């Protein structure tokens, strides 16, 4: 009996090792640089993809997740489906996700936003806005803004999404 079961266990163990290795290899890297401050989030007005003006201060009173991203940024592609989900899930509790794309042209952003069914306002970011937020030196950059309009957290690079969700929901 043991001789029969042993090869089967061996196969299961081998599969488990392959899976564990793959999961470990694909784990998100946590950004080492995390800032939290209490300064007021700099206001900006940009033209949203749909042509309407996108003014940050219009969302005062809501908890804002400001996401600097780009279509070519692989970690951004991992995050965005979660942001779409959170926008639906927490909209009634006052969450507003805003995406500022750092792409050079709006065409690829339009196509991307349709494919990813992005359900929140998106605009092309500018040098000026990026500089107001201390500079964008890599993507993604996630900024959590409280109902009072103050920056609660800033994360450069791929951040732990469970932690980010906790940070947002703690403000709601």
């Amino acid at each position, binding site marked *: 009996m043991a001789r029969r079961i042993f090869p089967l266990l061996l196969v299961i163990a081998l599969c488990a090792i392959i899976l564990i290795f793959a999961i470990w290899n694909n784990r998100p890297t946590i950004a080492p640089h995390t800032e939290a401050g209490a300064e007021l989030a700099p206001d900006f007005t940009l033209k949203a993809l749909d042509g309407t003006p996108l003014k940050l201060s219009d969302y005062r009173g809501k908890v804002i997740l400001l996401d600097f991203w780009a279509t*070519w940024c692989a970690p951004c592609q991992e995050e965005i489906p979660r942001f779409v989900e959170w926008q639906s899930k927490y909209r009634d509790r006052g969450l507003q996700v805003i995406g500022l794309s*750092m792409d050079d042209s709006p065409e690829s952003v339009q196509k991307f936003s349709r*494919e990813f069914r992005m359900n929140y306002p998106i605009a092309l970011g500018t040098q000026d806005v990026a500089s107001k937020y201390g500079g*964008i*030196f890599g993507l993604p950059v996630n900024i959590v803004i409280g109902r009072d309009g103050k920056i609660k957290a800033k994360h450069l*690079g791929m951040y732990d999404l469970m932690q980010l969700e906790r940070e947002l929901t703690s403000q709601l």
Partner: protein
Amino acid sequence: MSFRFVRLGTTCVIFCLTALSMPQKGLAQWNPNQIQPATALSQSVLIQPAELVKALQSSKIKPVVLNVGPKMLYQQAHIPGAEFIGQGSDSESIKQMRARVQSLPHSTVIVLYCGCCPWAQCPNVTPAYTELRRLGFINVKVLYIADNLGTDWVYKGYPTVRGNN
């Protein structure tokens, strides 16, 4: 009996490998072009940020530093003296890089860098490196940026320049 287990085992392994090679939802849909990840580069071609800082500060002949990342990030901060080429994953940028290096001797020390994303997800450095090697350049190095330019260069206090030049 053992043949049955071998067959079963092979099936399981093939199933696992197939499942793992399937694209993640959304990600591959958006990357129709085959990405050549930075992890494909061998360790011997990499240069660490501290080493590059030292090389740039030395009085010897300075390397030609080419930025093969996105323009917006280059304008936000780049290594002093680095020339903007465009994203290495874009064939137009590769064409531009070919034109830039055309007059250089093949022994020129060239350093490529991007810093848009974590190393394993950077789509830009490997195509640019591969092209320079194909053209016959023998002293090409790639700056190893583990997370992004901010974390691995700017916030470490290494010199940077803003704008287009």
